[in-house]
């Protein structure tokens, strides 16, 4: 059965099509949207094409390379720690510890910055723009520089690594937190404020419960990510998994590389499983 034949609404609409078109021209005109959409898509694709050309991408090289890739993977099998299993485990533990402390402290310090950088909390342009640029600077300064700065303060060792992680992660957390705050639903805030709550209380009760899950997931992600990359930790002489990995890569010990990667993968998986449990504990059971 066709809709037009039976549906009163469709019949009505067909009857009034011309009038509706005249009365609501905007509703029938997609041109602006389509043109803008097409222009945006063209810009994205066009820039990508230019980049491919500028950076000497070659289909042929890719085609030939894929085969070689397989051959190289064979050299990684079987993954083996050689005789360094214990060294690797220790290095991994060091890395996890440093990443944990660094991420935790960074998150705590970044918390107030997140609020200061959010436009809906601090309407004053100078404050939130200033704080944002400050956070940009923290992130923009290379981790190697942070490492050097802290090495000259506290010497070589894990402490310098923790400090360096803290500095660059404050920049990232501050930005991410502020963006979570800006996206929060305003209605609960109105509920609190209308009951005479101060602005502070409005943020504490209206916004915080909404953004805590987001913040927790970001912090856990960075914890995981710091555990994984751990370059800073290596630079400042705190040991960690980065050094054996870099060494194995530089000397093409591919079986060890494979083993290290698998080991990190296991740790990351564990962190991921724990973190999603924590996250759901914080979010709680979603309602309808």
């Amino acid at each position, binding site marked *: 059965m066709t809709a037009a034949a039976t549906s009163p609404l469709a019949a009505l609409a067909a009857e009034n099509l011309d009038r509706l078109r005249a009365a609501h021209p905007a509703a029938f005109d997609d041109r602006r949207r389509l043109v803008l959409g097409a222009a945006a898509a063209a810009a994205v694709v066009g820039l990508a094409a230019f980049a491919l050309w500028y950076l000497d991408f070659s289909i042929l090289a890719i085609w030939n390379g894929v085969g070689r890739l397989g051959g190289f993977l064979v050299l990684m099998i079987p993954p083996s720690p050689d005789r360094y299993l214990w060294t690797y485990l220790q290095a991994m533990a060091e890395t996890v510890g440093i990443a944990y402390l660094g991420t935790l402290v960074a998150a705590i310090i970044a918390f107030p910055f997140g609020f200061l950088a959010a436009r809906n909390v601090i309407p004053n342009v100078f404050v939130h723009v200033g704080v944002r640029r400050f956070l940009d600077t923290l992130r923009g300064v290379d981790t190697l520089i942070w490492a050097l700065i802290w090495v000259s303060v506290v010497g070589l060792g894990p402490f310098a690594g923790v400090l360096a992680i803290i500095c660059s992660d404050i920049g990232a957390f501050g930005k991410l937190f502020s963006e979570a705050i800006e996206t929060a639903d305003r209605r609960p805030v109105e509920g609190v404020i209308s009951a005479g709550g101060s602005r502070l209380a409005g943020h504490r009760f209206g916004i915080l419960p909404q953004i805590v899950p987001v913040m927790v997931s970001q912090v856990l992600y960075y914890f995981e990510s710091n555990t994984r990359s751990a370059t800073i930790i290596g*630079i400042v*002489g705190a040991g960690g998994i980065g050094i054996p990995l870099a060494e194995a890569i*530089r000397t*093409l010990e591919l079986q060890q590389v494979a083993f290290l990667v698998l080991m990190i993968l296991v740790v990351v998986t564990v962190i991921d499983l724990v973190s999603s449990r924590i996250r759901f504990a914080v979010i709680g059971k979603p309602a309808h």
Partner: protein
Amino acid sequence: EGWKDQYPELSLAVIPAENASTTTDRYGPLADYLSKELGVKVTLRVANDYAAVIEAQRAGNAQIAMYGPASYARAVMTGVELDPLVVPRHSNGMTGYFSVVYVRADSAYKTIEDLRGKTLALVDPNSTSGNNAPRFFLDRAGYSVDTFFGKSFFAGSHDNAVLALAQGTADAAANSWNSEDDSNLTRMITKGVLKDAAGNPMKKEDFRIVFKSDFLPEGPFSVLSALPEDLKAQIKQAFLDMPSKDPKGYAALSDGKDKEFVGIDRAAFDPIIEMVKFNDAARKS
């Protein structure tokens, strides 16, 4: 020994070397040995970047450090007051090594002259044997790397530079070389990672050396000049005694390839400093 109150703990800072065993395996025994000899705890710090070692020494936070020749020069040039103590003497009797330029044996390139306009693979900007030395010594021989070769690039590591040559990405590659049977190339071959573009394993005979630098001294173990004289002397003595007092630890430290430590003074590194200065100046011209 009054210095023990001032220095209840010493730091030994090293950077990873591109060798078979891991860095802690190599230097762990040395730190233990020094602790025993000096009677204070010596903590080993493996930093992945020598810039961090230099900053730690500048701030007085690391008292003993192992440098490569170029990074020692860098530390001195940027104002760290250092006394070099010892360098190792290899089994072949030398206290240093060379930088070489390889080509493939099946290529037409016989001398450096044949490489005009060709592609050279360097290691990375900070490498002594893979960048600083070839630049300096090639220039001295009349071949400026930037103008003589058609293109030069950093391959990232010593192994990568050799691989680039093996697979035809480059026509020549700079690398380090100790002796006929002891070089980065021989190590790669032993491990079986050196294959050509078609995936066939390669031999030492497949490569030819077309250029060899002057002798480069090994990197020294150094201490802060500001340390008390008697402490410095004790540390130096401990190093000199290590091969006899702790042969096992010394074997680990040197992969069994070195004979002993010999003392060295600042002047030995003047050529290296000159080399680094030359390269710095060449950069802006």
